[in-house]
């Protein structure tokens, strides 16, 4: 069937699959051909459980080797005399080699045994199974060496791949080439893929496609004949419809949104996005044995999770989980490694958390938690703190929580201040009540200054820190430097006591932080939320509708707020009774009359005031406008064009203002009557004035 039908039906035989892929590759600019030949049974029948899984992530650490310096350095240090015995070294090397050879022998034997076990059962028609795959040759699109592609998988293989046994012919839309080279033992890898070589490849249609023509010995001036030499018959044009797969179709390509491929000792699951509740799109499970019973490692990949988790690796032998997150989390976490045995809600398990230090306020890069040690690492902090390590003593029966024993803070060198003033490490021994300070190493020094304080008991001195020379001791590395001043030492002591307090507080905050984080993670893992990206047009319809609804609701709420009942009587009630009063009980006659009077009078006064204001403004602008007009009329002829333009601008503004005020006045006049009536109606119907109104109805009071 045609490639188009193959795409629609989503299933085909190898020839049809090859046609689809080659059509696309040629359309993309590659020089691709369909190869007809013989392949092994595993390839023809798409049996994968004897092949290695190609998608296992490669976890080898790439070490950056600094580039070799290009030129010989002009100055080199004279090497130290080598005093070791060369003979002894040689003998040691020989011994090493011998041991290594024995180990290698054992390893080779083991590998041979494994290969034996893994050999596939014998195949009677081996070497006769016809199969079609794809060949891509240079030079288009930067391809340097020809290679094969297997259409049922989509993986590329080099020419000497063992599963392809013979190549019989090669064709595409331009021409059909038959392989007439002698078969060698090495298989298709040793063949020449130069299609212009007539001893290797027999052409169906004579001549070459135009990009491989070598126009040799042709008289190009004679146009007619030039074109006709080396011409070859063209294949008829294609009648297939455009091969197209929509993005939607591509996403939902797995039937049932889930596909399982069984490789050698590995199970590969692929999911369609959004089909699984937790957003997983790929899972690889590596087993210890061929029967897939003992799980060794699991890798999982996720997409579109709200908590930005990207991959998870669970190592079942060491019981460690490693989660990697994308950028965008509020706490800027990038990687979280923890032990499966670690208590879920507490800080005391084995955990390593790595953060993106740059957007965090505290520049935290890494946190390492173990049951007895807590370490923080920072990068590029303004106060140069590099790491803080807290050592705990385990909890006892009396106090089950672990206690802080030591806090060590390490700082980086500040080149602006001399080394003897620049702190390198601060060690607070909480349980011994001492503070150790180590200063940075100066240039050319291998020892550093130290200072040791025994903390004074603040309870005795009532908060003031007194200086006792016997409670401090130190070492100065520079023998000719002067002794430090007591005042400086005292300042140092005060600062460090304050700093210790701050640090302890910080540690408590940090622990709370982590606990909160762990709880959040627990929720996120239990109830994963998937988000829809803004630019995902298909799924976003639902989101868009949701937003539209939200907008409506918001608009309604604001409108409602505007029209919310403003009780005109409220301020007067408040004035009489205090705020919040008088809203329940009925008012007496006297109170009610008073309030009514106040309300009506105020209203009238307000209306009058408003009218006056508008009138005033109107009069002012009107007179201004008239004055300007008169001035213009008087000076019309002696005005420069700029001044005239200025006059026109101002006069237009003024006239606009005058008109607006006029409109306001008229509106005010028109509406004041109905407004008054509305107020009267309201007062009549007000619940708190019921008594009064009842009375008013019975006895019409002259107004």
């Amino acid at each position: 069937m045609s490639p188009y039908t193959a795409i629609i039906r989503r299933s085909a035989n190898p020839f049809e699959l090859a046609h689809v892929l080659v059509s696309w590759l040629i359309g993309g600019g590659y020089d691709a051909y369909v190869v007809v030949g013989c392949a092994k049974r595993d390839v023809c029948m798409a049996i994968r459980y004897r092949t290695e899984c190609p998608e296992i992530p490669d976890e080898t650490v790439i070490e950056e080797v600094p580039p070799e310096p290009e030129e010989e350095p002009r100055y080199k240090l004279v090497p130290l005399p080598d005093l070791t015995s060369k003979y002894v070294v040689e003998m040691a090397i020989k011994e090493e080699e011998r041991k290594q050879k024995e180990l290698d022998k054992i390893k080779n034997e083991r590998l041979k045994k494994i290969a034996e076990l893994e050999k596939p059962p014998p195949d009677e028609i081996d070497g006769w199974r016809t199969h079609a795959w794809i060949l891509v040759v240079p030079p288009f699109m930067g391809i340097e060496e020809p290679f094969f592609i297997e259409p049922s998988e989509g993986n590329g293989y080099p020419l000497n791949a063992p599963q392809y046994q013979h190549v019989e012919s090669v064709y595409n839309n331009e021409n059909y080439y038959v392989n007439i080279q002698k078969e060698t033992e090495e298989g298709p890898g040793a063949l020449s893929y130069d299609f212009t070589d007539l001893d290797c490849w027999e052409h169906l249609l004579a001549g070459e496609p135009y990009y491989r023509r070598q126009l040799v010995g042709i008289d190009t001036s004679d146009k007619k004949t030039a074109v006709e030499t080396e011409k070859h018959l063209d294949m008829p044009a294609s009648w297939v419809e455009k091969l197209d797969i929509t993005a939607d179709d591509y996403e939902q390509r797995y039937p049932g949104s889930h596909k399982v491929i069984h490789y050698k000792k590995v199970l590969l699951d692929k999911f369609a996005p959004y089909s699984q509740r937790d957003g997983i799109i790929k899972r690889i499970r590596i087993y210890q044995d061929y029967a897939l019973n003992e799980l060794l490692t699991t890798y999982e990949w996720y997409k579109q999770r709200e908590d930005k988790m990207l991959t998870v690796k669970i190592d079942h032998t060491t019981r460690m989980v490693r989660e990697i997150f994308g950028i965008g989390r509020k706490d800027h976490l990038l990687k979280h490694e923890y032990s499966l045995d670690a208590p879920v809600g507490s800080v005391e398990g084995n955990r390593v958390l790595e953060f993106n230090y740059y957007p965090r306020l505290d520049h935290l890069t890494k946190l390492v938690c173990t049951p007895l040690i807590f370490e923080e690492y920072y990068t590029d902090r303004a106060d140069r703190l590099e790491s803080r390590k807290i050592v705990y003593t385990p909890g006892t029966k009396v106090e089950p929580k672990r206690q802080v024993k030591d806090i060590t803070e390490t700082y980086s060198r500040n080149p602006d201040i001399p080394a003897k003033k620049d702190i390198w490490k601060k060690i607070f021994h909480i349980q011994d009540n001492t503070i150790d300070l180590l200063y940075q190493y100066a240039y050319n020094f291998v020892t550093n200054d130290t200072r040791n304080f025994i903390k004074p008991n603040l309870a005795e001195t009532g908060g003031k820190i007194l200086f006792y020379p016997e409670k401090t001791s130190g070492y100065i590395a520079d023998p000719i430097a002067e002794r430090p001043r007591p005042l400086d030492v005292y300042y140092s002591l005060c600062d460090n006591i304050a700093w210790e307090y701050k640090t302890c507080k910080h540690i408590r905050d940090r622990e709370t932080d982590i606990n909160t984080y762990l709880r959040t993670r627990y929720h996120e893992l239990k109830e994963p939320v998937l988000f829809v990206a803004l630019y995902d047009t298909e799924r976003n319809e639902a989101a868009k509708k949701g937003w539209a609804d939200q907008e409506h609701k918001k608009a309604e709420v604001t409108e409602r707020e505007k029209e919310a009942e403003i009780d005109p009587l409220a301020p007067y009630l408040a004035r009489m009774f205090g705020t919040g009063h008088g809203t329940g009980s009925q008012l007496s006659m006297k109170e009610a009359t008073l309030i009514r009077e106040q309300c009506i009078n105020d209203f009238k006064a307000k209306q009058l005031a408003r009218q006056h204001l508008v009138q005033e403004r109107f009069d002012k602008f009107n007179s201004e406008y008239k004055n300007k007009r008169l001035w213009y009329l008087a000076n019309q002829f002696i005005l420069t064009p700029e001044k005239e333009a200025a006059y026109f601008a101002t006069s237009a503004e003024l006239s606009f203002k005058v008109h607006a005020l006029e409109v306001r006045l008229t509106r005010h006049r028109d509406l004041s009557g109905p407004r008054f009536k509305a107020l009267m109606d309201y007062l009549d119907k007000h619940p708190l004035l019921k008594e009064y109104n009842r009375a008013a109805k019975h006895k019409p009071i002259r107004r």
Partner: protein
Amino acid sequence: MSQTQVTQKRNLNSLIIHPNIEPGVIDNAMLTRCILENGPTEEAGRLFAEEGVHLDEAVEVRLEFQKILRIDHLWMLKSLTKLTLAHNLIEKIEHLEQLTGLNELDLSFNKIEKIENLDTLVNLEILTLFHNKIRKLENLEMLEKLLVFSIGDNKIEDYKEMAYLRRFRMLRSVSFKGNPCCDDPMSYQFLRGALKRVTYLDYKIITEEEREGGISMFRGLIRKMDEADEKTEKERLAREDYNARVKFYAMSFVEYLSGPELLDSMFEKDSDGLILLSFGGELVGFFEQYKENYVETMAQLVEFAQEAYNDRQREIGLFKDLVDNALADSVAKSKVVLDEFEAKRKPVMEQVNEISVQYSAKQISMDEMEQVLVELGESFNEMLYDLWKSLMTLEMHLFEQCEDSRVQFAVNMTEKVTKLLEVARNAFGAWREHEGVWSMRQFEVLSKHLGNKIMLGDASPELYNAMMDRDMLMNLVAASSDNHMRFIDAREDLLTTRANSWRDDMVKGANDNEVKRNRDRILEINYFIDNQRDEWADMHMELTNTVDPDAVALLDEFQ
């Protein structure tokens, strides 16, 4: 008799300026008192006072309300940055020359009449002269960093005086009110317009509109001032540029050689040559040619010298890199050794602690403890010896390795300098040639017109005489030539000596640094080891309550 005595006394009394006030004198006592008053409080204050006041470390001194009449005796305060002598009775600014680090000076509420003697205070940024009797702004030229200036409540009569402040490029805040000229509202307008860089006038921001108003009010005057300033500014920039270029070329030893300046200055110093040159005519043409040749030769020399300079700097950089890397390596290794020592020391100290605890709990006797301590002491000594050996070995290795490189460095530097000197010699030789050619041509032209009265239209009398007399002419030419040759020789010598001395300094400097570093390190290592030994000994004695035999001997002596 007594009457005259009394009148004399009264006359003398009238000489006393403020008869009712006991004046203050700036002396050590007053300075110490003021510094202590403004120092830290309570515990820190106690320690501060105990230690004694170091006048040369004081950074800020406040001598206000001390009834001081004259400024003096402040030269001891070498690290001073902030000084206030406000609210005193000072009449003259003087004796502040030594305080060059001064940043802030407050002389407000005094009786100063003239600004003077502030020339050395180039770091001054804040100057307050509020409420004095100053009439004129002057003598502030050297204060280029002036930022905040307060001259309010003085006796400045004319607001145009304030245009003096235009020269301060960093000045941003001026306080001016209270002067007699402030009654005129135009004064503020003028200040706002004229002082373009100033942001705050009387501690209020000058808005753009106000500034525009000021500028428009005094447009003419301000424009004139601007023009004058532009000229001085250009000159200043040109001068700075020139100085920078001279400094730049001085580093490659070819200063003043990059243009015809040296040639011109040579001719200026040579009066005979000038006389001959004033002949004019063809001489001028030849002179121009001479100048061109000279410039060309020197340009080549300058180029080569620049390249050589870059080359030398590169070489120095490589050498420094090597030395720094080697040092860093050695330091790292030594630190590793020290860490190992620490690790070994800890368990020993813990054992000592254990023993002493046991002893104080009366579990073991003094003898047993002593024995254990002595054993531990021996092992500690061994550790110390090992440490000493490793550290010293590392240092020795480093020193020896670097020595070779230093020798190589010296050789390379010498080579480079020699090459430079050779090229310089060639260039100067070429110059001498040009000079010879010029001399010859000069003589030819002049001798052609010898005795020709017609050509000498408006010549000076000396030239006239020379042209009449052949001998005199020859003398003049010879004198001029000699003069020039001497000049050229002097310049070449200068170049050679400077290059050589630079090279010597560099090599010697490198050697000296290395030796000093080596000795410092050895000193440090030994000091550390000694300290450790002392600590152990002290601890030993404390635990065993033994007495230091040396101390006993000393005490015995004094008893």
